[in-house]
């Protein structure tokens, strides 16, 4: 567990941002990963008093507060109705219910962890990160950026008709994924994200002009091959690069079958 000289429950994002400019201060979100560190902090910055644990649906988007827990999102019926039921598949294997009752969406996105199911899932939707200083940036851009001292206030997911489908492969049910895969099916084409490579997830796009909305079994295999070839893979204690690439293809095939290969 980290140690801190002070624990400050901030009253505004402005206060959180100001405090977060010092390297010796750190934001505490769900405290699931930070608690594993042995850092010596000057000030631990707690966002839990900002009422940022909301999930708001408007006509055009969902806004998810940075302190919304993974469990609350997993159980949110309106979100699942809009983007498909696989949100529970993406989040439901993350440790246990108790873990997901504390882990936050903001903390998961900020971490940009290689093993992140959350990042892989959101990358195939039209997702943006609302930062205190830099404003609204696309998630794909944020995911590729380095850590800085800005503060995530909320995640915005546009309702553009897209549905997300998710699969992961794990050695044991609640472990980090060996590989994670998601497909976002849009009226113009498909978005594919592969995570836990073990590098962090990235997203690619395949237009229907290249791979039509209706796919034969051979075309499914060919598109899955194309997707798996589009990413780099690495080796760690869980699996080798070659095996990861193979599983990425298998999961993508399964996902394509799951989508019904028809555009929304």
């Amino acid at each position, binding site marked *: *567990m980290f140690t*801190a000289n002070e624990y400050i429950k901030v009253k505004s994002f402005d206060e959180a941002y100001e405090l977060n400019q010092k390297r010796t201060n750190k934001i505490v979100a769900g405290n699931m990963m930070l*608690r594993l560190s042995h850092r010596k902090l000057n000030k631990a910055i707690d966002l*839990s008093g900002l009422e940022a644990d909301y999930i708001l649906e408007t006509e055009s988007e969902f806004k998810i507060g940075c302190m919304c827990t993974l469990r609350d999102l997993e159980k949110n019926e309106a979100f699942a109705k809009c983007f498909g039921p696989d949100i529970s598949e993406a989040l439901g294997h993350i*440790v*246990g*219910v108790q873990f997901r*009752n*504390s882990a936050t969406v903001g903390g998961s996105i900020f971490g940009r962890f290689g093993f992140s199911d959350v990042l892989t899932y959101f990358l195939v939707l039209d997702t943006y990160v609302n930062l205190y200083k830099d404003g609204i940036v696309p998630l794909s851009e944020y995911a590729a950026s380095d850590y800085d001292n800005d503060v995530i206030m909320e995640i915005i997911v546009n309702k553009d008709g897209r549905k997300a489908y998710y699969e992961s492969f794990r050695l044991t049910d*609640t472990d980090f994924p060996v590989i994670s895969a998601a497909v976002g099916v849009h009226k113009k084409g498909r978005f594919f994200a592969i995570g836990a490579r073990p590098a962090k997830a990235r997203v690619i796009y395949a237009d229907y002009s290249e791979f039509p909305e209706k796919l034969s079994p051979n075309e499914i295999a060919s598109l899955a091959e194309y997707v798996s070839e589009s990413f780099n893979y690495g080796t760690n204690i869980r699996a080798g690069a070659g095996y990861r690439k193979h599983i990425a293809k298998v999961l993508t095939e399964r996902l394509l079958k799951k989508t019904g290969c028809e555009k929304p």
Partner: protein
Amino acid sequence: MKIRLKINGKDFAPHIYPSMILLDLLRDLGFKSVKRGCGTTNCGLCTIIMDNKSVLSCSVPAARADGKEIYTLEGFQDKAAEIAEFLADEGADQCGFCAPGFVMNVIALEKENPNPTEKEIDEYLVGNLCRCTGYMSQHRAMARYFAHKQKEA
């Protein structure tokens, strides 16, 4: 710093240090049912109920518990005894170290979903590790417990 919280229905106002975790605070206050296990938010031994949700007390900063309502196994003695009978009947309790966290999560499940399917039971309790039983006996015990509760209702 000083916080105020309610534990098992009683008010407390302990002094804490800034990076104290709730697990340590609860044990310092005498709630020894809350066990320290992996210390990495994986095993479920330290499960408590905070504002009606099961959480891992090893990951909750004690300062975040200010103003919260907390329950540990000490606050559910009768319910724990009832669940323990089903665990005992199926041989689902060996060293017993995981039992307090396990029972707390069963209570949380029952509050959230009083009529779970067997799949829902397994999914809910997957975050409670047990190195003795291999889980099948726990699965049978909880399937029987919830079937019994449904008959009672």
